[in-house]
């Protein structure tokens, strides 16, 4: 419940050619909290996340990180600040083991050779810190893991680098009930350990189970960002589908505004 957001976006605009995808978007992310980012298909969730992660340059608006205005031109810039994104497809290599995957492209070296011992220790420590008990051996190939375990490895990979903000794109979308429960617990633990977590999800039960705040995008605009303890399920559904609910949301949502 900290007052100052670690990540603060204001007036973000983004167009692809003639198509404006984000319009004057404001978005705050707080450490120690899970912020759920919700919205219909095409509302701009993925684009917003890619702007935060430095994949798409923003056309206008301010990007503040820990109170400082920053320019993020590439995923490397975002990673250097401590912003990590776990995409839906996870980007894990099936033919590599868990440690190799966690350090893929950022391997630790000792002289000319890889420092396997250190990497193994760091990976084990990270998984232990997240109370991950579902993985038998960290030298297991990723191809032998279940969907939930893969998600766990992908999240652990994001946490490994002392990251401060972790963004999860639909982490439970393809999972069964038991594995969803594990991943949600992990998501909650990340925030309880002090990280700022952004959770993109379509599942309202997931959103209400773990989030502290809910940000609803509607047709490229931020309809509302509210505390989870202040809204009901139907209000959030209204924000997603019509951009407003009672006093909450956008002033004009009939599509007439530019």
């Amino acid at each position, binding site marked *: *419940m900290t007052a100052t957001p670690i990540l603060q976006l204001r007036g973000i605009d983004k167009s692809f050619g003639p198509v404006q995808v984000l319009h004057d978007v404001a978005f705050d992310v707080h450490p120690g909290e899970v912020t759920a980012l919700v919205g219909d298909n095409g509302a701009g969730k993925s684009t917003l996340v890619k702007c935060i992660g430095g994949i798409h340059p923003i056309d206008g608006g301010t990007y503040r990180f820990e109170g400082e205005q920053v320019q993020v031109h590439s995923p490397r810039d975002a990673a250097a600040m401590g912003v990590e994104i776990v995409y839906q497809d996870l980007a894990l290599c099936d033919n590599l083991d868990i440690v190799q995957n966690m350090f893929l492209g950022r391997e630790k070296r000792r002289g000319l050779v890889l420092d396997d011992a250190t990497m193994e220790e760091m990976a084990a420590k990270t998984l232990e810190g997240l*109370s991950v008990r579902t993985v038998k051996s960290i030298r297991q190939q990723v191809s032998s893991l279940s969907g939930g375990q893969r998600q766990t490895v992908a999240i652990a990979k994001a946490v490994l680098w002392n990251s401060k903000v972790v963004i999860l794109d639909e982490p439970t979308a393809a999972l*069964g*009930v*038991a594995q*969803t*429960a594990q991943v*949600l*617990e992990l998501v*909650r633990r990340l925030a309880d350990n002090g990280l700022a977590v952004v959770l993109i999800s379509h599942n*309202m*039960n*997931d*959103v*209400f*189970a773990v989030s502290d705040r809910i940000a609803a995008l509607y047709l490229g605009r931020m309809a509302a960002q509210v505390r*989870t*303890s*202040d*809204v*009901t*399920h*139907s209000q959030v559904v209204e924000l997603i589908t019509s951009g407003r609910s009672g006093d909450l949301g956008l002033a004009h949502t009939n599509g007439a505004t530019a």
Partner: protein
Amino acid sequence: MKAGPSQEEIRRHNLGTLLRHVHIGGSMSRAVLADRMGLNRSTILGLVSELASVGLVREELPRDTGRAGRPSLVVRPESDQVYVLSFDVGVERLTAARIGLGGVFLDRRETRVRPDRRDAGEVTEVLAGFARQMMDTARHGTNCVGVGAAVRGTVRRTDGLVRSASYIDWEDEEFGAGLTRRLDLGLPVAVGNEASLGALAEHLRGAGTGCQDLVYLHGDIGIGGGVITGGQLLGGDCGYGGEIGHMVVNPRGGRRCGCGARGCLEAEAGERALLEAAQRDPSATGREAVRAVIEAADRGDISARAALHDVGDWLGIGVANLVNILNPRTVIFGGTLREVFLGSAAQIRSRINSHALAASRENLRLRVGELGDNGVLIGAAELAFSTILAGPLEALARTTP
């Protein structure tokens, strides 16, 4: 009239407090202990030596500090040497464990039973058999310092009399006294309500660590509850407090509850209500049956979804009441309610947000239990450890063989 606590009482209190710190917090250096207890280092040294001399703690070098310089010794609980026995009289199984100081599982046994009427004598026999086996495998010179047991029912605090436990058809059953006699260890068996013990376990070692005000809801055959306020388990006058499952939420036309009343939370949101609303085979009960409903709902089964929706609604109403009355920081869902919560969180939260007072719900956190099936056993063990933590030397003097 006494002027204040004597030197001796203060020392006993300090010994207990120090032991509690390493029991709950694990190995820590004397400097950390001095800091946490607000005592000077020479006092801590004296206390540690005294506890070490009777074999409750040991000082050793930490494994790897990763820091330069001579590492300072850490004080470690003697988990292999000092242990308690912990029993859980469950719905589908009887479980027993030998748990070492520091909360380490040293041994665990269980047997499946049919979920119906059970003779207290038979239960006592099975548990005593487990106790015998586990104590036989323990090394020579180890020391059992307490026994705790959990029952899903109302238990009198003073003597472990089970006033009622409808799932096994017990009424005024002298379970605590009977098990004490049967074990014959010279230790009274401490008996507690399973959800209260679950609350204690989550408070000390689970999702509620560091949280002084929490409510724990435990689902299996019914809904049990445990309340921690100001770091203490709420028991009420005789120890029957915390029966959240029998909070009345729908008295007019509500469902009939096992206790005889109508519209208890357990009747509206318990396992039976969920399974009936989802139109499941009435003979299939237990955790697997509940999971099947949640999985069906996840796949889009409309009757399963509607059932979860209803149950979530009632749970939310129940929790909203608790939030208004107790203002907990954390509400923890355990047992089968863990899955039910994750499957109906939108309903539960919405109800809380519409019925609980804004100020009371502002900082409320909803969490799932972290200890899983072992939570109740851990809680019963903590109950068993409470004697030695209250006065280590006196308790040890009574139990040393």
